[in-house]
């Protein structure tokens, strides 16, 4: 009947769902056709030969033969009932099998020579084969039409049902001996067999029948059966068994056969084909109830499908069952239906629902487990190591603490240990940029803060060296050159001299300065504001340091992006600089009666400490401005004004001493370093600034004297190095003369304490610095001014221990040499 003019002859009658009964062996046969034919002899490992047939002592215990003689074989078997007792085990086995053996290989056991270890873990072979085989999914038993559903399931795996074209004979001929090819469940089979047995022989009542299984439950039973991987088989086997009892002897998991099977029956021969070609041939090996988990092992051992049994109707089938029953290690297979039978409808529904869920889960597990075992543990270790390496590379070695996060969490430790390491290790050892930034920063800090008490000495030593060099230079210098300069000095008029004052922007300060200005009482509010301003300075400084560390790489010439980055970076730096400058308030105007805001910051120790860092982050003009600001307010500094020396032996209090030391270490040192970059014009300008202040006050403090020494010795070094234009020198000499005239009356009083104290080294340094640059006339005046102190020190030195005396004399000598004399001349 052609429907819609379809050519029915061309129709693929093998395709599922086209009016033919499903042949459960279809896929198997097809596969076997496709597969390479395997000779049983090639694959049989001969294990069956090794079986020990002698030790049968406990067979009775095992198999229940209590009489020792085989009784009449009954037909009252009840696999179904037995199986129901181990339902749980089977369920577990199912799940386990699902995970381990996704593709059931049951149909082709001998084709898997390596199948001895399938349980231990799927091999690669498995996975290579898995996709091409229809496999159970766990859904089968929920289909109303289980047999057809098997076909559908194959598609579930993405496998084209091309293998389904079954052997030509079977489906196409509905009039095959089986008639309707109706599938019967094992339950039905058993029930009928029991009925037969009852009718035929008065056999003992079936012991193992806990309950009758109603036929209505058959479909459930069928579903359950399909849950097993061998569902194809079972369905296929049961049917012929029933409808052609005489024609299809069946081997159900026979016990190991001692005889190796004959090669005449290659195991790989597809049973379905045989069936088709020789429907009447009795030697049709079939197999049911294979436990998948032990399939391969058993198969190999048993020599699987090769056990021809004479066709003897139900009896042979019975025997087969009997054998199966006597095989205790073979777990029974079907069980739940029996239990289900007792359940109410609701419970059944709930159970089925649960089962569906479970099956779905199993399916998922299977899909996920498809790639199980692809990687060995070694592979995984390898990958893990690679990932760790990448992680380390991405986040940086924790020991290198390169990231800002770790810096934020552990700032002190990170930087401190880097500094320590930097000092301990070889200086040429490369450090990361971060360490370098802070190392440089702490270089000055170390000189100052860390070795706090040694800081000033360091500074004084350097100053002393500078003065000494200046003295040496002066001594080596021909006298007449100096005279020439002196001579020119007198002829230069003030008006013609170029004064650097405008550059320094000091006019206003001059007018606003009030020598007698009393220190403004710092009330609480001012102090708070000042401290807050200081913190702002520090915050900005830290930002700038961070910013400096993040400096982008020097861009390539045509790298626009990098150029933009650098541009943005410098812009940001500029903004930070402005912020810092604003916070410092260096250029604020002096308010009468109030201390300058910048100098107020310097009155705090942390303000003093900030100066070295500020100098690192400011430009030249800003530094000069700061320098100028400090010099202009020198006589108002607490460390100057409140630390005036007298000839009495006075001791400043601890706080003041600390203040002085800190100022000397943090500020004077910084200014000293900075000053060495300045030209003569600026030095002269600074000295000129000093002249506008209370020089006597300045000179009578240690800080002030140090500053003066610094300025004067710098000028001498410039002179020694031949720097400075002639005009600069004229300006300098003029300023110097002015300075000397102002200072001269104070000179006798700048010594700290009495002659007995040894704190006057810095004074001798100052005197030496003054003496170098002085004209002969000024030198003479200088000697006269300090003559008493010189003589006293020399005479005191005679009473002192030699070492101490040498020190004192050396101090004096520093000055004496600067004016061309020597202390030995006095002795």
């Amino acid at each position, binding site marked *: 009947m052609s429907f819609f003019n379809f050519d029915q002859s061309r129709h693929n009658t093998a395709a599922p769902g086209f009016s033919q009964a499903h042949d459960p062996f279809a896929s198997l046969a097809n596969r076997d056709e496709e597969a390479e034919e395997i000779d049983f002899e090639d694959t049989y490992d001969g294990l069956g030969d090794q079986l020990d047939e002698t030790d049968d002592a406990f067979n009775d215990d095992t198999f229940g033969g209590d009489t020792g003689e085989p009784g009449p074989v009954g037909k009252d078997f009840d696999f179904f009932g037995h199986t129901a007792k181990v339902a749980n085990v089977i369920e577990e086995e199912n799940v386990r099998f699902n995970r381990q053996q996704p593709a059931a290989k049951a149909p082709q056991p001998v084709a898997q020579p390596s199948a001895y270890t399938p349980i231990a873990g799927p091999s690669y072979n498995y996975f290579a084969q898995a996709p091409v085989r229809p496999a159970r999914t766990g859904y089968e038993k929920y289909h109303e039409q289980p047999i057809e559903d098997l076909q559908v399931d194959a598609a579930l795996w993405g496998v084209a049902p091309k293998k389904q074209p079954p052997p030509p004979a079977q489906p196409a001929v509905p009039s095959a001996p089986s008639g309707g090819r109706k599938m019967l469940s094992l339950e039905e089979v058993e029930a009928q067999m029991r009925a037969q047995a009852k009718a035929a022989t008065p056999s003992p009542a079936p012991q193992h029948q806990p309950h009758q299984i109603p036929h209505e439950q058959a479909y459930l039973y069928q579903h359950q059966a399909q849950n097993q991987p061998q569902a194809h088989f079972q369905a296929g086997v049961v049917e012929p068994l029933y409808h052609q009892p005489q024609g299809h002897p069946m081997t159900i998991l026979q016990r190991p056969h001692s005889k190796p099977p004959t090669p005449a029956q290659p195991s790989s021969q597809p049973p379905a084909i045989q069936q088709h070609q020789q429907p009447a041939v009795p030697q049709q090996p079939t197999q049911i109830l294979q436990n998948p988990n032990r399939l391969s092992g058993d198969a190999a051992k048993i020599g699987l499908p090769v056990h021809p049994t004479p066709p003897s109707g139900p009896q042979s089938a019975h025997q087969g069952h009997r054998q199966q029953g006597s095989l205790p290690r073979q777990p029974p297979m079907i069980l739940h239906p029996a239990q289900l039978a007792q359940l109410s409808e609701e419970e059944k529904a709930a159970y089925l629902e649960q089962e569906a869920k479970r099956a779905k889960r199993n399916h998922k597990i299977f899909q996920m487990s498809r790639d199980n075992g692809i990687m060995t543990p070694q592979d995984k270790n390898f990958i893990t190591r690679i990932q760790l390496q990448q992680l380390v590379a991405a986040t940086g070695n924790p020991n290198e603490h390169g990231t800002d996060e770790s810096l934020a969490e552990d700032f002190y430790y990170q*930087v401190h240990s880097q500094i320590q390491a930097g000092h301990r290790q070889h200086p040429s050892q490369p450090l990361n940029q971060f360490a370098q930034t802070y190392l440089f920063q*702490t270089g000055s800090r170390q000189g100052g803060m860390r070795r706090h008490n040694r800081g000033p000495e360091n500074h004084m030593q350097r100053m002393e060296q500078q003065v000494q060099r200046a003295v040496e230079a002066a001594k080596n210098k021909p006298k007449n050159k100096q005279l020439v300069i002196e001579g020119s000095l007198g002829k230069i008029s003030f008006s013609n001299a170029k004064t650097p004052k405008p550059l320094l922007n000091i006019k206003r300060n001059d007018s606003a300065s009030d020598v007698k200005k009393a220190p403004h009482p710092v009330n609480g509010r001012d102090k708070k504001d000042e401290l807050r301003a200081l913190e702002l300075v520090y915050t900005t400084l830290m930002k700038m340091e961070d910013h400096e560390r993040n400096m982008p790489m020097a861009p390539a010439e045509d790298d626009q992006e990098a150029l933009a980055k650098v541009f943005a970076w410098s812009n940001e730096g500029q903004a930070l600089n402005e912020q810092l400058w604003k916070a410092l308030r260096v250029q604020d105007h002096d308010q009468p009666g109030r201390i300058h805001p910048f100098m107020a910051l310097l009155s705090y120790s942390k303000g003093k400490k900030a100066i070295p860092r500020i100098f690192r982050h400011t430009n030249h003009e800003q530094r000069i401005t700061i320098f100028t600001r400090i010099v202009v307010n020198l006589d108002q500094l607490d460390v100057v004004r409140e630390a005036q020396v007298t000839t009495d032996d006075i001791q400043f209090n601890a706080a003041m001493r600390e203040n002085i030391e800190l100022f000397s270490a943090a500020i004077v040192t910084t200014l000293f370093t900075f000053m060495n970059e300045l030209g003569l014009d600026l030095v002269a300008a600074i000295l000129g600034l000093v002249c506008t202040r209370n020089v006597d006050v300045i000179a009578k403090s240690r800080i002030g004297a140090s500053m003066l020494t610094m300025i004067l010795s710098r000028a001498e070094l410039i002179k020694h190095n031949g720097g400075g234009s002639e005009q600069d020198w004229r300006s300098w000499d003029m300023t110097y003369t002015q300075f000397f005239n102002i200072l001269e009356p104070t000179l006798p009083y700048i010594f700290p304490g009495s002659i007995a104290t040894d704190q006057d080294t810095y004074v001798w340094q100052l005197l030496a610095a003054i003496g170098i640059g002085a004209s002969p006339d000024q030198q003479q005046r200088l000697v006269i001014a300090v003559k008493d102190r010189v003589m006293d020190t020399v005479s005191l030195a005679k009473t002192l221990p030699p070492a101490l005396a040498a020190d004192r004399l050396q101090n004096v000598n520093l000055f004496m040499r600067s004016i061309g004399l020597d202390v030995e001349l006095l002795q």
Partner: protein
Amino acid sequence: MNARHFSSVVQHILTSSSFFKTLIDHEVTVELKNDIQIRGVLKSVDQFLNIKLDNIQVVEELKYPHLSAVKNVFIRGSVVRYVHLPQESVDIQLLEDATRREAANQATKAKQG
């Protein structure tokens, strides 16, 4: 400033544990809240500022003879009153910066939270 040690009141946990890490293997004196002072080599400090000291010596050994046999101690952080630090091992300015940074971090965190 001539004092060899100075006392530090612990305020910032993060910074202080970071700080104490730099003092490991330095000799410190831990003053407990029961007035016992224990001098020893700092071995470890944890987040609770529990302190492990090695080679300890009680400052007033005559007063606390029961500790003279003890060689190392683990001190619960909550019983510590002061830790006297070797001044030369402390970078004060760096410490100040560290506290500033932490304060800034906490400020930003407070803003965000």
